[in-house]
Every structure is written in C-alpha cells, then in structure tokens.
C-alpha cells in the first residue's frame, strides 16, 4: 500500500505549483486555473487522509469543495466576460485603473 506521506507530498507539490502559477502568470484564466489546481491538491489531501483515517468527513468535505469550485468557476468566468466586453484584455497587467 502506498503510504499516506506520499499522497501528502504529492498534494503539497501540486499546491505549490498552483501557488507559483497564480503568483507568476498574468493571464486571468491561467491564474484561475492555478486556483483550481490548488483546490484539487486540497481534495487529494482530504481524500487520502479520509481513507487513511477511515473517517468519512474528508470525503464529504471534498464533495462540498468540488461543488463550490463549480459555482466559483461560473461566477469567475462571468466576471471575466463582463470585463472583456469593456476592455479587450485578459491580462492583469492591463487592468490597472485602480491604484494609489
């Protein structure tokens, strides 16, 4: 059986890749995908722990996270479309009306 720590290390790596992507990439869609990657690292962590601890809470939590992530995707992409209608860009470097 694969030990729990392997799953946790994999989840930590995925989470770090997601964080890196969010901080480095400038395309809103890619940044959003990075957040999804971070969420899926969390899901992996929860499922592995839930299996290892023989406790269903982690499983339940994962289902909730997937549901919320879907709602978040709908709202996020909606906001990006509204933004794109006003100014034809998806790069955060071009969105800098607000500063001070």
């Amino acid at each position, binding site marked *: 059986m694969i030990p729990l720590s392997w799953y946790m290390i994999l989840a930590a790596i995925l989470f770090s890749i997601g964080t890196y992507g969010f901080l480095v990439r400038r395309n809103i869609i890619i940044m959003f995908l990075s957040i999804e990657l971070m969420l899926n690292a969390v899901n992996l*962590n*929860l499922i592995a722990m839930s299996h290892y601890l023989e406790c269903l*809470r982690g499983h339940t939590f994962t289902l*909730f996270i997937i549901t919320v992530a879907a709602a978040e995707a709908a709202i996020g992409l909606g*906001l990006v479309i509204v933004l794109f209608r006003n100014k034809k860009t998806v790069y955060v470097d071009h969105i800098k009306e*607000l500063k*001070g």
Partner: protein
Amino acid sequence: MNMPFTMPPLGPIMPEILLVCIGLILIIVDLLYPRNRELLSQLTLLACIGLIALLFNQKPASTFGNMFIVDPYSIFFKVICLLGLLMTTLMSGQYLTIEKIRHGEYYSLMTFSVVGMMIMASAADLIVIYLGLELMALSVYCLVGLLKDDFRSNEAAVKYFLMGGFSSAILLFGISLLYGMTGTTDLAGIAKYCSEAGIMKNPALLTGFALVLSGFCFKVGAAPFHFWTPDIYQGAPTSMTAFMSVAPKAAGFAVFGRFLMTGFPELHEQWGTIIAVIALLSMGVGNIVALSQTNIKRMLAYSSIAHAGYALLGLLAGTSEGYSATMTYLFIYGFMNMGAFAIVILLCSAGNRRESLEDYKGLAKSNPMAALLMLIFMFSLTGIPPTAGFIGKFYLLKAALAAGYTYTVICAVIFSAISAYFYLRLVRYMYMDDPQEEFVAQYSPGLTAALALSTIGVIGMGILPGSFLNLAARSLIGF
C-alpha cells in the same frame, strides 16, 4: 447497508432558512413586478427587522451534530450583519437611482451573502465555516461587479474574485492539514484531540494552523494580507463598499474568534504573539498609507485595515473581556462606518461621484447638516470622546493591557494619534475652506433614516456605553 435517517432539529437554523426563503421571494417578486423597485427594498427591510426580533428570542442550542451552534456570541454577530444589511438597504435606494442600476438581484444577492455570514457566525465545524464563507464571498463578488459598464467596477470584481479564490485555497489547505492531524473537522474535537494527544508542537499541525490564520486575515483584511482592500473598496459601488466594510468583516471576526477560542485555546502563547504582530502591521499600514490618499473611498479602505488591526487587539488578549471588547467595537464600527459611507452616497450625484477629498472643501457652507454628521463620524473613527469610537477603542486597549501586551498597546495609541491627521484633515476641508461649486445634497427618506440610525448609534453608545457593553459581555457567558 441500511442506516436510519433522523432529521436534525431545524429550530436553531430557522433564521437562516427564513432568510434564504426571503432571498428567493425577492427574485420572484422582481420577476412579477419588474417596475416596482421600492417593493424589493421594503421587503428586505421588513425581513431584517423581523429576523433581528426573532434572533433575540432564540435559545442557545445546537443542531446537525454540533456543526451549527446558536449561542449568544453568534446571535450578537448575526445582529451586526443584519444591521449592516438594514442600513445598506436604506441607503441603496438613492444610490441605485443615481447610478441607474436596475438589477433586481441586488437585494437577493445581499440577502444570500448575509445568510452566509450568519452561517459563519454559528459554525462550529471547519466544513460549515468554509461553506458559509463561500456563500458570503460568491455573492459579494457579483455585487462588486454590479456596475457592468464601469470598468473600475469590473476590475474590482475580478481582482476580488482572484484574491478571494486564492485565500480560500490557502485556507482549505490549512484545513486539510488540521483534519489530517486531528482526524476531525469539529473545532471542539480538534481542541480535545490536541490536548489529549499532546501534538501541539507538531510542525504539520502548526503549518495548517498558520495557513488557516492567513486565510482568515485575508477575509478580515488585516495586513500583510490587506492589499486587495483599497482597490476593491474604490471600484465597488459605494453602497456595496459600505456593506463590505461592515458585515463580512464582522462575520470574519466571528469565525476568527471562535476558531481561536474553541479550536486552539492552548496555543494562546503562540498565536497571541502572531496576532499582536498582525494587529500592529495592520494599524501601521492602514493609518500611514491613508495619510497620502486623495480619494475618500480609498482613504476609508485604509482606515478599515487599521480598524481591523484595532479589533484584533481584543482577540489577541484571549480573554472574555477582550472578546467582548472586539464585539462591541465591531458593533460601533458598523454604525460609524455606515454613517461615513452614507455621506459619501449623499454627495454623489448623476455624472459626478464626488469621491475626491477636494470635493469636501467648504461642505459646511453649502450643506451644514451633512458636514456636521461627517464631523461626528470622523471624530468617532478617530476615537474622540464623547463618540462611541472612543468607548470602543478604550475597552480594546484596556483588555490588551490587562493581558500584558503593553508595547502593542503603546504602539496602538501612537498609530491612533497618527490617524487623527487624515480624519481631521477632512474636517478641516469641510469647515475651513471655501466651497468649490454650488451643490445642495438631496436627502431621500431611506438615506435620512440610515444617517439618523448611525448618528443615534454613535452618539448614544458614546454617552451611554454601559448597556451595550453588558450585552456584549453577556453574549460570552457559557463560552
């Protein structure tokens, strides 16, 4: 496998269920009477008043296997959130007319976000905390981007969405680590397991704890996780800025307090220091950067970062005295900040938003009443007696001092003195300068009511603080 299903008692969660129904009714009413906008705000107002009355009559109870707890602590925060909704609804009418926002979903989205906040206030389980938080946040993302043709509103919404999603992911990773280490998501269970197994020094547990803490700091807008606040406060519709600076912040503090108090009481020595640093940073960044702002909404955003720092002083004390001081402060802050934003809305007119500080020059000559009220709110935000802001700050500092954080308190007082500069600069503009344009503000009935309510709150709690403090102190009995 055949497991019996028993329905958990729904009594404790009734206010939330009712509020969800009201949100749905608002959508239907909007569909059936598309021309009658007044009806929506009146319904929301009635719902707020009814629910506040219902909440005061609720008995302490818990349901869904102790995931959802009703206690005086949660009721207190729910009342703050509902009052925030009430005052925002009162001042929205005029603002929506000026900005020509005709979206019926405005009120229902606000209602749903308040449901999320009420769930957060009652949550005693990490799963419920997350769900409440997301319900609140997702509704607020939409509301921030409501001015669809205004690029600044789009920008604020997208930024808020990205930052919010990022902070949620960090929070969740922390939660997953906490769950893995303790085998439960129940806050009381986590505390019990930690003290029994003696894993307080476990690095994975501490990492999880730190990640959750930073997620919460994001949500309440405390430094160094504050950088989203100014942009979003400036770009959002002003009525939403008022709402965001009061209700989600109070809900965030409710979760923050319960997480620290129920989940990790034994780690107080460690998190006390961390929170002292966060509080000092917030007060420093908020008050010093606010000095150079020229936009009133941006200035109030930095001021809200500083006020998050003040409110953290009560949490860091870790005593029931400190918690009651934080609760009182958030209650008072709700009134004074709502009042200040009501004046910002009052000055707004079609085609000219008057959001620059320059626009306040000579306000005392053109609109003496508006200037006087703004003076009261600015005094209260600075913390000058006899306004409520002074009382709130006084009890926070007293609690932190009693817990032994002398240096933190000294710094807090110094930062508070610095903040007087930018609050009172606005007062100087209003009273010492000459008006730049002829402008007579229009008071709609709703806005007048919101202003009256916040003025009564600020002055009343400043002169008679005893009864409010008692209420906050009583809310902590049994914790």
